Protein backbone atom coordinates (compact mmCIF):
# COMPACT_ATOMS: atom_id res chain seq x y z
CA UNK A 1 0.00 0.00 0.00
CA UNK A 2 0.95 3.57 -0.61
CA UNK A 3 2.43 5.45 2.30
CA UNK A 4 -0.27 6.71 4.63
CA UNK A 5 1.42 10.00 5.38
CA UNK A 6 3.71 11.98 3.11
CA UNK A 7 5.42 15.23 4.01
CA UNK A 8 5.37 16.37 0.42
CA UNK A 9 1.61 16.14 0.29
CA UNK A 10 1.44 17.79 3.67
CA UNK A 11 3.29 20.88 2.45
CA UNK A 12 1.43 20.98 -0.85
CA UNK A 13 -1.83 21.18 1.11
CA UNK A 14 -0.89 24.20 3.17
CA UNK A 15 -1.54 26.91 0.54
CA UNK A 16 -4.74 25.12 -0.46
CA UNK A 17 -6.20 25.10 3.03
CA UNK A 18 -5.01 28.37 4.54
CA UNK A 19 -7.23 30.73 2.46
CA UNK A 20 -10.31 29.03 3.90
CA UNK A 21 -9.30 30.08 7.39
CA UNK A 22 -11.13 33.33 6.74
CA UNK A 23 -14.43 31.42 6.38
CA UNK A 24 -13.86 29.77 9.74
CA UNK A 25 -12.92 33.09 11.32
CA UNK A 26 -15.96 34.86 9.91
CA UNK A 27 -18.28 32.29 11.43
CA UNK A 28 -16.53 32.55 14.77
CA UNK A 29 -16.54 36.35 14.76
CA UNK A 30 -20.23 36.63 13.87
CA UNK A 31 -21.24 33.88 16.29
CA UNK A 32 -19.26 35.41 19.12
CA UNK A 33 -20.14 39.04 18.48
CA UNK A 34 -23.88 38.66 18.10
CA UNK A 35 -23.91 35.64 20.41
CA UNK A 36 -22.63 37.80 23.26
CA UNK A 37 -25.36 40.39 22.64
CA UNK A 38 -28.05 37.71 22.49
CA UNK A 39 -26.69 36.05 25.63
CA UNK A 40 -26.71 39.39 27.46
CA UNK A 41 -30.35 39.83 26.52
CA UNK A 42 -31.25 36.31 27.68
CA UNK A 43 -29.46 36.82 30.98
CA UNK A 44 -31.28 40.10 31.47
CA UNK A 45 -34.65 38.39 30.92
CA UNK A 46 -33.62 35.69 33.38
CA UNK A 47 -32.39 38.03 36.08
CA UNK A 48 -35.36 40.36 35.75
CA UNK A 49 -37.72 37.41 35.40
CA UNK A 50 -39.47 39.09 32.47
CA UNK A 51 -42.76 37.27 31.94
CA UNK A 52 -43.22 35.28 28.70
CA UNK A 53 -39.64 35.96 27.59
CA UNK A 54 -38.08 34.19 30.54
CA UNK A 55 -39.89 30.87 30.11
CA UNK A 56 -39.47 31.14 26.37
CA UNK A 57 -35.70 31.52 26.73
CA UNK A 58 -35.62 28.60 29.17
CA UNK A 59 -37.04 26.27 26.53
CA UNK A 60 -34.85 27.80 23.88
CA UNK A 61 -31.65 27.35 25.88
CA UNK A 62 -32.64 23.81 26.79
CA UNK A 63 -33.20 23.00 23.12
CA UNK A 64 -29.89 24.47 22.05
CA UNK A 65 -28.07 22.54 24.76
CA UNK A 66 -29.99 19.35 24.25
CA UNK A 67 -29.86 18.77 20.52
CA UNK A 68 -26.97 18.19 18.14
CA UNK A 69 -25.77 21.25 16.26
CA UNK A 70 -26.20 19.41 13.01
CA UNK A 71 -29.93 19.27 13.63
CA UNK A 72 -30.04 22.91 14.67
CA UNK A 73 -28.30 23.80 11.46
CA UNK A 74 -30.87 21.85 9.43
CA UNK A 75 -33.83 23.23 11.25
CA UNK A 76 -32.62 26.76 10.67
CA UNK A 77 -31.44 26.19 7.11
CA UNK A 78 -34.67 24.56 6.03
CA UNK A 79 -37.19 25.48 8.72
CA UNK A 80 -36.78 29.24 9.03
CA UNK A 81 -37.55 29.97 5.35
CA UNK A 82 -40.54 27.62 5.54
CA UNK A 83 -41.86 29.69 8.42
CA UNK A 84 -40.98 33.15 7.18
CA UNK A 85 -41.48 33.05 3.42
CA UNK A 86 -45.21 32.19 3.39
CA UNK A 87 -45.95 34.82 6.04
CA UNK A 88 -43.98 37.74 4.59
CA UNK A 89 -44.08 36.72 0.97
CA UNK A 90 -40.28 36.79 0.85
CA UNK A 91 -37.97 34.28 -0.69
CA UNK A 92 -35.14 34.02 1.80
CA UNK A 93 -35.13 30.32 1.08
CA UNK A 94 -33.16 31.03 -2.06
CA UNK A 95 -32.37 34.67 -1.44
CA UNK A 96 -30.08 34.03 1.52
CA UNK A 97 -26.94 32.08 0.90
CA UNK A 98 -26.14 28.96 2.89
CA UNK A 99 -23.49 30.79 4.84
CA UNK A 100 -26.06 33.30 6.10
CA UNK A 101 -28.06 30.47 7.61
CA UNK A 102 -24.85 29.12 9.09
CA UNK A 103 -24.23 32.48 10.77
CA UNK A 104 -27.77 32.51 12.16
CA UNK A 105 -27.39 29.00 13.53
CA UNK A 106 -24.10 29.69 15.21
CA UNK A 107 -25.31 32.97 16.67
CA UNK A 108 -28.41 31.33 18.14
CA UNK A 109 -26.36 28.43 19.47
CA UNK A 110 -23.68 30.63 21.00
CA UNK A 111 -26.30 32.92 22.50
CA UNK A 112 -27.71 29.98 24.44
CA UNK A 113 -24.39 28.59 25.62
CA UNK A 114 -22.90 31.96 26.51
CA UNK A 115 -26.02 32.91 28.44
CA UNK A 116 -25.47 29.91 30.69
CA UNK A 117 -21.86 30.96 31.25
CA UNK A 118 -22.75 34.61 31.92
CA UNK A 119 -25.61 33.74 34.23
CA UNK A 120 -23.36 31.47 36.27
CA UNK A 121 -20.71 34.18 36.50
CA UNK A 122 -23.11 36.92 37.60
CA UNK A 123 -24.81 34.85 40.24
CA UNK A 124 -21.48 33.82 41.70
CA UNK A 125 -20.60 37.41 42.59
CA UNK A 126 -21.52 38.00 46.23
CA UNK A 127 -24.72 40.03 46.49
CA UNK A 128 -22.95 42.38 48.89
CA UNK A 129 -21.24 43.95 45.88
CA UNK A 130 -24.59 45.02 44.46
CA UNK A 131 -25.73 46.27 47.84
CA UNK A 132 -22.57 48.30 48.24
CA UNK A 133 -23.20 49.87 44.85
CA UNK A 134 -26.73 50.81 45.87
CA UNK A 135 -25.54 52.14 49.20
CA UNK A 136 -23.23 54.71 47.60
CA UNK A 137 -26.15 55.85 45.43
CA UNK A 138 -25.47 54.08 42.13
CA UNK A 139 -28.45 53.10 40.00
CA UNK A 140 -28.99 49.47 39.03
CA UNK A 141 -27.46 50.03 35.62
CA UNK A 142 -24.48 51.87 37.03
CA UNK A 143 -23.92 49.12 39.58
CA UNK A 144 -24.04 46.53 36.84
CA UNK A 145 -21.73 48.34 34.50
CA UNK A 146 -19.14 49.56 37.00
CA UNK A 147 -19.12 46.87 39.68
CA UNK A 148 -20.63 43.59 38.49
CA UNK A 149 -19.50 43.53 34.87
CA UNK A 150 -15.76 43.92 35.53
CA UNK A 151 -15.87 41.16 38.15
CA UNK A 152 -18.05 38.93 36.01
CA UNK A 153 -15.66 39.07 33.08
CA UNK A 154 -12.94 37.51 35.18
CA UNK A 155 -15.14 34.62 36.29
CA UNK A 156 -16.60 34.00 32.85
CA UNK A 157 -13.31 34.13 31.00
CA UNK A 158 -12.07 30.52 31.41
CA UNK A 159 -15.33 28.82 30.37
CA UNK A 160 -15.70 31.42 27.62
CA UNK A 161 -12.28 30.38 26.34
CA UNK A 162 -13.25 26.70 26.29
CA UNK A 163 -16.43 27.61 24.48
CA UNK A 164 -14.53 29.56 21.85
CA UNK A 165 -12.12 26.69 21.24
CA UNK A 166 -15.13 24.41 20.79
CA UNK A 167 -16.76 26.91 18.44
CA UNK A 168 -13.77 26.85 16.10
CA UNK A 169 -14.11 23.09 15.83
CA UNK A 170 -17.90 23.04 15.53
CA UNK A 171 -17.82 25.56 12.73
CA UNK A 172 -16.65 22.72 10.47
CA UNK A 173 -20.26 21.51 10.35
CA UNK A 174 -21.04 24.11 7.69
CA UNK A 175 -19.46 21.93 5.03
CA UNK A 176 -22.57 19.78 5.24
CA UNK A 177 -24.61 22.58 3.74
CA UNK A 178 -21.95 23.40 1.21
CA UNK A 179 -19.94 26.14 2.89
CA UNK A 180 -16.27 25.26 2.65
CA UNK A 181 -14.21 26.00 5.74
CA UNK A 182 -10.74 24.65 6.58
CA UNK A 183 -12.10 21.29 7.69
CA UNK A 184 -14.34 21.00 4.64
CA UNK A 185 -11.41 21.96 2.46
CA UNK A 186 -9.34 19.19 4.03
CA UNK A 187 -12.12 16.74 3.34
CA UNK A 188 -12.48 17.81 -0.26
CA UNK A 189 -8.73 17.60 -0.78
CA UNK A 190 -9.06 14.06 0.52
CA UNK A 191 -11.73 13.32 -2.04
CA UNK A 192 -9.80 14.92 -4.88
CA UNK A 193 -6.32 13.54 -4.14
CA UNK A 194 -7.24 10.30 -2.38
CA UNK A 195 -5.07 11.27 0.56
CA UNK A 196 -6.82 12.87 3.47
CA UNK A 197 -4.55 12.30 6.43
CA UNK A 198 -2.04 15.03 5.62
CA UNK A 199 -4.80 17.58 5.20
CA UNK A 200 -6.43 16.58 8.49
CA UNK A 201 -3.15 16.75 10.34
CA UNK A 202 -2.57 20.26 9.07
CA UNK A 203 -6.08 21.33 10.10
CA UNK A 204 -5.55 19.85 13.55
CA UNK A 205 -2.34 21.84 13.85
CA UNK A 206 -4.27 25.00 12.95
CA UNK A 207 -6.91 24.20 15.57
CA UNK A 208 -4.29 23.53 18.22
CA UNK A 209 -2.47 26.77 17.44
CA UNK A 210 -5.75 28.70 17.63
CA UNK A 211 -6.70 26.99 20.87
CA UNK A 212 -3.33 27.72 22.47
CA UNK A 213 -3.48 31.32 21.30
CA UNK A 214 -6.93 31.76 22.81
CA UNK A 215 -5.83 30.22 26.11
CA UNK A 216 -2.74 32.36 26.22
CA UNK A 217 -4.68 35.51 25.41
CA UNK A 218 -7.29 34.75 28.04
CA UNK A 219 -4.64 33.87 30.56
CA UNK A 220 -3.09 37.27 29.95
CA UNK A 221 -6.48 38.99 30.20
CA UNK A 222 -7.11 37.13 33.42
CA UNK A 223 -3.92 38.39 35.00
CA UNK A 224 -5.01 41.93 34.04
CA UNK A 225 -8.26 41.38 35.89
CA UNK A 226 -6.97 39.91 39.11
CA UNK A 227 -7.57 43.04 41.15
CA UNK A 228 -4.63 42.23 43.40
CA UNK A 229 -5.34 38.54 43.92
CA UNK A 230 -2.50 36.11 43.75
CA UNK A 231 -2.39 34.50 40.33
CA UNK A 232 -4.12 31.17 39.96
CA UNK A 233 -3.13 29.01 37.03
Amino acid sequence: MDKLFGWERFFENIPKILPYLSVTFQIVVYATGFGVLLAAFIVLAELKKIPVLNPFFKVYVSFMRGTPMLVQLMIIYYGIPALIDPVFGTNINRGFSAVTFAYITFILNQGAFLSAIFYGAITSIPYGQTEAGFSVGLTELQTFRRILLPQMVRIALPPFGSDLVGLFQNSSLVFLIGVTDIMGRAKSIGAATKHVLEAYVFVVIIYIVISLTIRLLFYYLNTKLEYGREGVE
Partner: protein
Amino acid sequence: MIEVKNVKKAFGKQQVLKDVSVEVEDGQVVVVLGPSGSGKTTLLRCINFLENADSGQLAIGDTCVDLKKATKKQILEIRRKTAFVFQNYNLFANKTALENVIEGLVTARHIPREAAIKRGKEALDWVGLGEKYHCYPCNLSGGQQQRVGIARAFVLNPEVILFDEPTSALDPELVGETLDIIKKVAGRGITMIVVTHEMSFAQDVANKVIFMDEGIVVEEGSPEEIFSNPKEERTRQFLSRIISLDSNYSI
Protein backbone atom coordinates in the same frame (compact mmCIF):
# COMPACT_ATOMS: atom_id res chain seq x y z
CA MET B 1 -33.33 64.39 60.83
CA ILE B 2 -34.35 60.80 60.25
CA GLU B 3 -37.54 59.19 61.40
CA VAL B 4 -38.55 55.56 60.93
CA LYS B 5 -42.04 54.58 61.93
CA ASN B 6 -43.77 51.25 62.50
CA VAL B 7 -41.37 49.09 60.53
CA LYS B 8 -42.44 45.49 60.23
CA LYS B 9 -40.50 42.73 58.51
CA ALA B 10 -40.84 38.96 58.46
CA PHE B 11 -38.62 36.32 56.87
CA GLY B 12 -41.00 33.49 56.11
CA LYS B 13 -42.84 32.88 59.35
CA GLN B 14 -40.23 34.53 61.53
CA GLN B 15 -41.29 38.08 62.47
CA VAL B 16 -37.87 39.73 62.64
CA LEU B 17 -39.04 43.33 63.16
CA LYS B 18 -42.32 43.83 65.00
CA ASP B 19 -43.33 47.45 64.73
CA VAL B 20 -40.07 49.33 65.31
CA SER B 21 -39.92 53.14 65.39
CA VAL B 22 -36.79 55.24 65.77
CA GLU B 23 -36.34 59.00 65.61
CA VAL B 24 -33.01 60.80 65.39
CA GLU B 25 -32.43 64.57 65.46
CA ASP B 26 -29.98 66.27 63.09
CA GLY B 27 -26.38 65.65 64.05
CA GLN B 28 -27.33 63.20 66.73
CA VAL B 29 -25.75 59.76 67.17
CA VAL B 30 -27.98 56.84 68.09
CA VAL B 31 -26.44 53.56 69.19
CA VAL B 32 -28.43 50.36 68.74
CA LEU B 33 -27.56 47.56 71.15
CA GLY B 34 -28.99 44.09 71.42
CA PRO B 35 -28.14 40.42 71.40
CA SER B 36 -27.33 38.48 68.26
CA GLY B 37 -30.38 37.86 66.08
CA SER B 38 -32.47 40.66 67.58
CA GLY B 39 -32.97 42.38 64.20
CA LYS B 40 -30.46 45.23 64.33
CA THR B 41 -28.94 44.58 60.94
CA THR B 42 -32.35 44.03 59.41
CA LEU B 43 -33.52 47.43 60.67
CA LEU B 44 -30.60 49.25 59.04
CA ARG B 45 -31.09 47.32 55.82
CA CYS B 46 -34.76 48.26 55.68
CA ILE B 47 -33.87 51.92 56.05
CA ASN B 48 -31.56 51.69 53.05
CA PHE B 49 -34.04 49.58 51.02
CA LEU B 50 -31.59 46.69 50.90
CA GLU B 51 -34.43 44.72 52.41
CA ASN B 52 -38.09 45.22 51.51
CA ALA B 53 -39.98 46.04 54.68
CA ASP B 54 -43.53 44.68 54.96
CA SER B 55 -44.76 48.07 56.15
CA GLY B 56 -43.51 51.31 57.67
CA GLN B 57 -42.68 54.95 56.87
CA LEU B 58 -39.38 56.70 56.51
CA ALA B 59 -38.57 60.41 56.56
CA ILE B 60 -35.12 61.84 55.90
CA GLY B 61 -34.94 65.63 55.84
CA ASP B 62 -37.93 66.65 53.76
CA THR B 63 -38.19 63.37 51.84
CA CYS B 64 -41.01 61.19 53.11
CA VAL B 65 -41.63 57.70 51.75
CA ASP B 66 -43.57 54.57 52.42
CA LEU B 67 -41.11 51.72 52.99
CA LYS B 68 -43.27 49.24 51.13
CA LYS B 69 -44.46 51.30 48.20
CA ALA B 70 -41.50 53.56 47.42
CA THR B 71 -40.81 54.16 43.75
CA LYS B 72 -37.41 53.57 42.18
CA LYS B 73 -36.81 57.29 42.08
CA GLN B 74 -37.63 57.73 45.76
CA ILE B 75 -35.36 54.83 46.66
CA LEU B 76 -32.49 56.38 44.74
CA GLU B 77 -33.14 59.74 46.41
CA ILE B 78 -33.04 58.17 49.88
CA ARG B 79 -29.92 56.21 49.06
CA ARG B 80 -28.18 59.37 47.88
CA LYS B 81 -28.95 61.01 51.23
CA THR B 82 -27.56 58.10 53.20
CA ALA B 83 -24.44 55.99 53.38
CA PHE B 84 -24.01 52.49 54.72
CA VAL B 85 -21.02 50.88 56.45
CA PHE B 86 -21.34 47.13 56.14
CA GLN B 87 -20.45 44.67 58.87
CA ASN B 88 -18.46 42.61 56.37
CA TYR B 89 -17.11 45.69 54.54
CA ASN B 90 -18.42 44.83 51.03
CA LEU B 91 -15.71 46.79 49.30
CA PHE B 92 -15.85 46.75 45.49
CA ALA B 93 -13.49 43.87 44.75
CA ASN B 94 -12.52 45.28 41.37
CA LYS B 95 -11.50 48.68 42.61
CA THR B 96 -8.56 49.99 44.63
CA ALA B 97 -9.06 51.65 48.00
CA LEU B 98 -9.13 55.10 46.39
CA GLU B 99 -11.45 54.01 43.57
CA ASN B 100 -13.78 52.51 46.14
CA VAL B 101 -13.97 55.78 47.97
CA ILE B 102 -14.55 58.00 44.93
CA GLU B 103 -16.99 55.71 43.08
CA GLY B 104 -20.08 57.25 44.68
CA LEU B 105 -18.80 60.79 44.20
CA VAL B 106 -17.98 60.41 40.53
CA THR B 107 -20.75 58.14 39.32
CA ALA B 108 -23.67 58.98 41.56
CA ARG B 109 -22.92 62.61 42.46
CA HIS B 110 -21.22 63.57 39.19
CA ILE B 111 -18.36 65.36 40.91
CA PRO B 112 -15.39 65.91 38.56
CA ARG B 113 -12.84 63.14 38.90
CA GLU B 114 -10.02 65.46 39.96
CA ALA B 115 -12.00 66.95 42.80
CA ALA B 116 -13.28 63.53 43.83
CA ILE B 117 -9.74 62.15 44.00
CA LYS B 118 -8.70 65.01 46.19
CA ARG B 119 -11.56 64.41 48.59
CA GLY B 120 -11.04 60.64 48.47
CA LYS B 121 -7.40 60.96 49.42
CA GLU B 122 -8.28 63.24 52.31
CA ALA B 123 -10.81 60.71 53.58
CA LEU B 124 -8.31 57.86 53.37
CA ASP B 125 -5.63 59.91 55.08
CA TRP B 126 -8.11 60.64 57.77
CA VAL B 127 -8.68 56.93 58.56
CA GLY B 128 -4.92 56.30 58.52
CA LEU B 129 -4.64 54.68 55.11
CA GLY B 130 -2.54 57.36 53.46
CA GLU B 131 -0.19 54.67 52.10
CA LYS B 132 -2.79 52.33 50.73
CA TYR B 133 -4.54 54.41 48.03
CA HIS B 134 -3.79 51.96 45.26
CA CYS B 135 -4.19 48.64 47.08
CA TYR B 136 -7.01 46.27 46.09
CA PRO B 137 -9.27 45.06 48.92
CA CYS B 138 -7.86 41.54 48.91
CA ASN B 139 -4.44 42.92 49.77
CA LEU B 140 -5.69 44.84 52.78
CA SER B 141 -5.97 43.40 56.29
CA GLY B 142 -9.46 43.11 57.74
CA GLY B 143 -9.04 46.26 59.78
CA GLN B 144 -7.80 48.21 56.78
CA GLN B 145 -10.78 47.08 54.71
CA GLN B 146 -13.15 48.17 57.41
CA ARG B 147 -11.56 51.60 57.43
CA VAL B 148 -11.91 51.94 53.66
CA GLY B 149 -15.60 51.16 54.12
CA ILE B 150 -15.87 53.92 56.69
CA ALA B 151 -14.04 56.40 54.46
CA ARG B 152 -16.31 55.46 51.54
CA ALA B 153 -19.34 56.42 53.64
CA PHE B 154 -17.88 59.63 55.09
CA VAL B 155 -16.63 61.01 51.81
CA LEU B 156 -20.18 61.19 50.46
CA ASN B 157 -20.95 63.70 53.17
CA PRO B 158 -24.50 62.35 53.41
CA GLU B 159 -27.26 63.48 55.73
CA VAL B 160 -27.33 60.12 57.48
CA ILE B 161 -24.75 57.36 57.93
CA LEU B 162 -25.80 53.86 58.95
CA PHE B 163 -23.10 51.79 60.62
CA ASP B 164 -23.35 48.02 61.11
CA GLU B 165 -20.71 46.99 63.66
CA PRO B 166 -18.01 49.21 62.19
CA THR B 167 -15.23 48.08 64.51
CA SER B 168 -15.65 44.29 64.68
CA ALA B 169 -12.42 43.57 62.82
CA LEU B 170 -10.26 46.14 64.46
CA ASP B 171 -7.70 45.74 67.21
CA PRO B 172 -8.21 47.88 70.31
CA GLU B 173 -5.87 50.58 69.07
CA LEU B 174 -7.80 50.96 65.85
CA VAL B 175 -11.16 50.78 67.60
CA GLY B 176 -10.14 53.80 69.53
CA GLU B 177 -9.05 55.67 66.43
CA THR B 178 -12.21 54.84 64.56
CA LEU B 179 -14.38 56.01 67.39
CA ASP B 180 -12.45 59.26 67.42
CA ILE B 181 -13.25 59.69 63.74
CA ILE B 182 -16.93 59.02 64.29
CA LYS B 183 -16.96 61.55 67.09
CA LYS B 184 -15.39 64.16 64.82
CA VAL B 185 -18.00 63.49 62.15
CA ALA B 186 -20.79 63.80 64.67
CA GLY B 187 -19.42 67.23 65.39
CA ARG B 188 -20.03 68.14 61.74
CA GLY B 189 -23.74 67.59 62.14
CA ILE B 190 -24.10 64.32 60.28
CA THR B 191 -26.81 62.10 61.73
CA MET B 192 -25.68 58.55 62.55
CA ILE B 193 -27.24 55.25 63.53
CA VAL B 194 -24.62 52.84 64.83
CA VAL B 195 -25.11 49.15 65.58
CA THR B 196 -22.24 48.09 67.80
CA HIS B 197 -21.10 45.81 70.57
CA GLU B 198 -18.63 48.38 71.84
CA MET B 199 -20.12 49.70 75.05
CA SER B 200 -17.43 52.31 75.45
CA PHE B 201 -18.51 53.81 72.16
CA ALA B 202 -22.13 53.92 73.26
CA GLN B 203 -21.11 55.70 76.44
CA ASP B 204 -18.74 58.03 74.73
CA VAL B 205 -20.55 59.48 71.74
CA ALA B 206 -24.18 58.38 71.76
CA ASN B 207 -26.89 60.97 72.27
CA LYS B 208 -29.34 58.14 72.60
CA VAL B 209 -29.11 54.38 73.17
CA ILE B 210 -31.69 51.92 71.87
CA PHE B 211 -31.82 48.41 73.21
CA MET B 212 -33.48 45.87 70.90
CA ASP B 213 -34.46 42.27 71.51
CA GLU B 214 -36.52 39.88 69.42
CA GLY B 215 -37.65 42.48 66.93
CA ILE B 216 -38.85 45.18 69.30
CA VAL B 217 -37.30 48.22 70.93
CA VAL B 218 -37.17 47.11 74.56
CA GLU B 219 -35.89 50.37 75.94
CA GLU B 220 -34.44 53.66 74.80
CA GLY B 221 -32.89 56.63 76.54
CA SER B 222 -29.72 58.56 77.17
CA PRO B 223 -26.58 56.47 77.74
CA GLU B 224 -26.62 57.39 81.40
CA GLU B 225 -30.17 56.16 81.84
CA ILE B 226 -29.62 52.91 79.99
CA PHE B 227 -26.31 51.99 81.55
CA SER B 228 -26.81 53.22 85.12
CA ASN B 229 -30.49 52.72 85.53
CA PRO B 230 -32.07 50.36 83.03
CA LYS B 231 -35.81 50.01 83.54
CA GLU B 232 -36.36 46.69 81.82
CA GLU B 233 -35.26 43.35 83.21
CA ARG B 234 -33.97 42.15 79.79
CA THR B 235 -31.72 45.20 79.41
CA ARG B 236 -30.36 44.79 82.88
CA GLN B 237 -29.58 41.15 82.25
CA PHE B 238 -27.75 41.90 78.96
CA LEU B 239 -25.69 44.69 80.50
CA SER B 240 -24.83 42.79 83.66
CA ARG B 241 -23.04 40.08 81.68
CA ILE B 242 -20.94 42.70 79.95
CA ILE B 243 -20.18 44.78 82.94
CA SER B 244 -19.09 41.84 85.07
CA LEU B 245 -16.70 41.05 82.24
CA ASP B 246 -15.19 44.45 81.89
CA SER B 247 -15.06 45.49 85.50
CA ASN B 248 -12.25 42.99 85.93
CA TYR B 249 -9.73 45.23 84.33
CA SER B 250 -10.72 48.71 85.13
CA ILE B 251 -7.38 49.67 86.48
